[in-house]
């Protein structure tokens, strides 16, 4: 316990001096970051709404197909004839029947397992590399992609390659902070030495002066008393005021510390551990605008958003940035057949039940609302406190996403009949214990 407190004190003390001496304002930046979060997003639903039917030449269908193709297919397939990861798709609509393509795209593994000869052949041709299934696509969406491929519009475009210099940006933030920390320590040590020297010098001077005055014997009774005044510690010690003050300060500090610690048990806001692989969300979600759902595949359908498995990384990285030492770590994990052990950042206690799909799919909440500006994070940190108060606040303020959801139709009517306030999560029982604790 003591070691714990001293550690805190040490840290606090350093921070205090740092702020005082260098007048360095670290907080202003943080605040401005927060403000930006809500306004920017990766927009998980960007590709939705692209419904296409009718003639293949319909430009709206082609646009929708293009968008779908670029977001979902282009990382592995070119619309031309060259092989990226999977085969080039030029003329695929002539080679295969539409129904075959439909079932292949929606679940290629099922088709392979059913023993379809064409499917097995293509699977073996490409070294048994599985194509991710796109079961969520509607028939129309697949048709729009096929229409786009058929139109040949995408042929000229080269498959997207990773921008140069992506690696250089890695770890910049952490290194900088580390460097500043080292510098600060040196400054502090020097300062402390200077202060000690100053005190010693002052003490020396005062004793020299005293000796000089005493030798001269020119002092009267009154002066003598002042010069040779003896500092009486016991007087201070016995002083009631001092005692009260010390006790008071001690008690206040103790209470403050303990309240702080008790409140902070389990709260890890800002927790930013070093991950085994320096994966950058800024690069993937920010610069390349990859949909969160592409890697966190279950975020719209499960309680957990799921950490992507290595084969999802390999969808792109079997082609892109293969030589990067960080990517090599994924290769090694696959070779050794050992899963990657990421450090878990968001640790909700076991007693609280949280379901991602309830919030993302039903509530239509942006990922950034809770996870912060994830598209700007090189190293992910815990943005929200994840305390019960934080959850409840949001449940009290957020209106339910009832639009177009038959589940809520009657409830909305009942609510409007009885209350004028917004139909929030809380007003539908969203703050009851057994909504999250069971």
């Amino acid at each position, binding site marked *: 316990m003591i070691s714990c407190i001293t550690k805190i004190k040490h840290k606090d003390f350093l921070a205090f001096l740092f702020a005082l001496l260098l007048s360095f304002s670290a907080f202003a930046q943080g605040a401005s970051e927060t403000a930006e979060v809500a306004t920017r997003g990766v927009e998980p639903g960007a590709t939705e709404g692209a419904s296409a039917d009718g003639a293949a030449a319909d430009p709206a269908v082609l646009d929708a197909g293009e968008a779908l193709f670029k977001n979902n297919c282009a990382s592995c397939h070119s619309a031309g004839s060259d092989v990226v990861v999977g085969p080039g798709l030029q003329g695929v609509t002539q080679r295969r029947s539409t129904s075959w393509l439909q079932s292949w795209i929606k679940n290629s593994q099922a088709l392979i397992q059913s023993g379809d000869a064409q499917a097995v052949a293509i699977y073996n041709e490409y070294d048994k590399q599985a194509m991710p299934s796109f079961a969520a696509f509607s028939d129309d969406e697949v048709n729009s992609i096929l229409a786009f491929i058929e139109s040949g519009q995408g042929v000229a475009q080269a498959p997207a390659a990773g921008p140069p210099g992506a690696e250089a940006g890695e770890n910049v933030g952490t290194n900088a902070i580390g460097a500043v920390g080292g510098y600060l320590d040196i400054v502090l040590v020097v300062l402390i030495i200077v202060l000690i020297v100053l005190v010693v010098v002052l003490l020396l001077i005062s004793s020299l002066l005293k000796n000089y005055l005493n030798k001269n014997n020119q002092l009267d009774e009154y002066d003598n008393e002042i010069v040779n005044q003896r500092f009486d510690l016991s007087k201070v010690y016995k002083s009631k005021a001092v005692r009260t003050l010390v006790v008071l300060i001690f008690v206040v500090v103790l209470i403050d510390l303990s309240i702080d*610690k008790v409140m902070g048990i389990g709260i890890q806001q800002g927790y930013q551990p070093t991950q085994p692989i320096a994966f950058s969300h800024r690069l993937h979600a920010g610069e390349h605008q990859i949909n969160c759902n592409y890697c966190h595949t279950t975020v719209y359908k499960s309680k957990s958003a799921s950490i992507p*498995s290595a084969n999802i990384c390999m969808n792109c990285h079997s082609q892109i940035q293969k030589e990067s030492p960080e990517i090599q770590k994924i290769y090694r994990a696959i070779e050794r057949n050992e899963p990657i052990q990421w450090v878990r950042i968001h640790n909700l206690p076991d007693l609280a039940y949280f379901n991602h799909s309830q919030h993302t799919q039903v509530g239509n909440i942006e990922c950034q609302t809770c996870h912060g500006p994830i598209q700007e994070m090189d190293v992910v940190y815990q943005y929200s406190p994840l305390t019960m108060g934080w959850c409840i606040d949001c449940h009290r303020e957020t209106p339910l996403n009832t639009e177009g959801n038959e589940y809520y139709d009657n409830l909305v009517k009942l609510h409007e009949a009885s209350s004028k306030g917004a139909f929030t999560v809380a007003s539908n029982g969203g703050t*009851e214990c057994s909504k999250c604790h069971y």
Partner: protein
Amino acid sequence: MQDRIKYWKGIEELENTPEFQKHAHNEFPEFLPINDTTKEGAAGVNNKRRDFLKLLGFSVAAVSLASCEAPVRKAIPYLNKPVDVEPGVANWYATTFYSHGDYNSILVKTREGRPIKIEPNPMSNLTPMGTSPRAQASVLGVYDNNRLRAPYIGGKESDWETVDREIVSRLNSVNGKVAFVSSTIISPSTKKLINEFGSRFGNFEHVVYDPSSSSALLAANGGVVPGYDFSKANIIVGVNADFLGTWIAPTPFAKQYIQTRKVSSDKPEMSRHYQFETRLSLTGANADVRVPIKPSEEAAFVAALYAAISGGSATLPASIDKKNFDAAVKDLRANRGKALVVSGSNDTAVQTLITAINQALGAEGTTIDTASPFLVKQGNDAQMLRLIEEMNAGSVGAIFFYDANPAYDHPLAERVVAGLKKVGLKISFSERLDETAALVDFVTPDNNYLESWNDFEAKKGYLSLAQPVLNPIFTTRQAQDSMLLWSGSNTSFYEYIRNNWREIATGDFNEFWEQTVHDGVLNGRTLSTGNTTAANSLTAASAASAISSRRAAATTGDAVEAVIYEKVQIGPGTAGAANNPWLQEMGDPISKATWGNYVAMPRKMAEEREIVQGDMIKVTFANNKSIELPALVQPGQAQGTVSIAMGYGHELESMPVAQGLGANAFPIVSVVDNNLLYSNTVTLTKTDATNPIAQLQTHHTIMDRLVVQENTLAKYKENPKDVTEYIRIATHDGPAKPATISLWDDYEYKDHHWGMVIDLNSCIGCGACTVSCHIENNVPVVGKAEVLNRRDMHWLRIDRYYSAVEHEEKDYETMEDPAENPSVIFQPMLCQHCNHAPCETVCPVAATMHSSEGINQMAYNRCVGTRYCANNCPYKVRRFNWFAYFENDKFANVNYMMNSDLGRMVLNPDVTVRARGVMEKCSFCVQRVQLGKLEAKREKRRPKDGEIVTACAQSCPTDAIIFGDMLDPESRISQVLVKEQGERAFHVLEEINTQPNVTYLTKIRNLA
């Protein structure tokens, strides 16, 4: 006017002993030890306060230290995510559970590849509604740490390569007969494989025996169990046949039986069920008329019944109630073609007569489906007895044991052990070192059934498949694969089954196969091939004369008749059931006893011999052998008899849960005419020792309040509105419903209002719901010592009440002993989710409160453990966590699913494991409610009725529990409530105005 019925929970309440009164008023026995202070002695007591302070200081320090730095937790994704596994989303696989007659077509719920729950397969025609308790609990078997992790040679761990090499070489040089011993196998492919495997040996025999044998039934019916169909019977007569609990195929029978037992005012008709039996069985408890008979009178009784039906002459033994016998005969005769008589006897003469009775009643083709017999029992006692002699004669060269443990569960186990020493090569496929496997040369452990492919045909024309739901956890191999390998085949058993099924496939085989694996069942086609049992040479007439020439067994002096029976939860005591804490802690449906067997005796016998419950009784039987067991006073037990359950008395370390519980009753089983008879004459001697029996439910008293309600069918037909007693409160305006006078405001429900209806007429008391609840909700198992301390944790219990009509005139001469043959009524009791809940108002920290959907919710992390709520709960359904049951060495065995890494795999990841010091109780499976609502919201629709069900409702084999949204007028529960309001629907303790969301329906008895 019917006499008032007096209900009581156990003998002690009937007698109202001072000790019972003391306990009844003391819900939380504070005097009971929380620490193991027995070793400390008196000196330890003085230091308690200081120790407490020290501990307090230490824990504060520890907590603060721990809070300084949170441990680093890992998130480990799949390396290669399987296509159909989504983390956090459950997958369901259809498969089949079969163990010693207990057949269930099931769905296995898996999360991230781990099986965690078993539910009925609604596509099955045999078991679409519920499961048996054993099937429910079987999910734990795969996580049993005491399964073998590798093959064994001569008691030492080895590897498969060595084992295969040695077995193959020794099989090539085997001298003498090769025997393959198994219990009943209902897998057509496995049977075919065994025959093929044996065909290369000159002298091969597949010996099938069942620890709980139906050999005589098979002999009397051409080698099969007749295709009984209770759903077509108006009159059912059971003679020592516990067909709802353990006999033949209880889960399908329960489904059939209940179809004729459900009543409504539109259809006030139900079957009448007579049960003539020795011990009070689950089936007897459900009978309309139950008559106790001695096992020695059984044959004479059946002969008399045969005579009465067919017009012959035989006299009924004098001690059997003539009035009820005549009533049964009259009913049977009046219902030709709609009557069914079944017997659990293993006496060929008796079963021959039963077959003749059913023929005389025209049951064949009506209440017996002759085209589709049951195949779940195939054991042949004579065959096994012959093999034991052959083993002892030294003529057996090699022997295999598959799903068989005769060194434990055969009455001649000693001869088996002696004979095994003379067998050259002994191989067991046992999953663990059980009694037999410990004596063999090679143990080649079989996979758990959840890790295996298999096929089943429980009833002719009803096929089902088993598919693996996970890879083998240990380096085990399926027995069938081992056999294929040893016979030099390269095919896997999976391919073998597929090839076998090609002959019945229609259309494209791959499509057919995928569909069948998906469904788990296939009806209307058969793979079964004949049977091995020799046909019966007895005719009904010769059987009747054989019986009449028998002399009654002379019981002299202290000798009494003993019956050996299967318990609903443990069955014949296979490791899968016996080593399963959920089943051990599940109360016996009748005696409510847990953790062990006992000598159940009638009260009269106990009084005569001055035996009180818990006294150790020495039971001496043939050859002066004996076992010692505690006595239990059992109302309804036939006079002059005792009953003892089989399946206990395991002493091996490979079954730590069952180790040392009770005693093995198999040796008492007698061998008569090459059949195993499950009764014998024994001598009882009271010893000085005592051993308390851990019973559930006898803890509380009902104080003569109106808790369960029942009435007769005659009255129900007369006026359905007159069968249920509704309590009215006197007001100045006259009598009023209690709900009309209330201090509290009513809740307003807008979205959902969850409720439950429990039909007491449908509940047979099997206990599947209690096990299901345990598993679904991570309820800890506490073990025998803590059950004795009345700290069991069941969220849902089945209260069993005995009753007898209280006679008005206090004439002791004529008044029968109410405990001699009481009626039984079962009442599932769980949190009633009261709208005016007494628990909610007394919680000082608001840890329990009402939700906007009518659920009484419990926030564990807010609970500080005052236990006021439990004190104030009139239904006594709240449970207090006296200990941390997880990661606690004290509960390492009895609660191993929370105390080992492997065991924890079975826990439901959506439900909290509760800490010490908090209250818990039924939550209406709120995790399922929430998930069901979420799925509906995701699909932008309202939840469909039947989509959201609690674990108990889902696993009920008789559909006695209906769960649903009472706000949805279309839902089944709403319609039942509208229909039954004022007729059979009642709330327990309505007078205290708790307004429960659980409604019960009055039980109707079709009395003769």
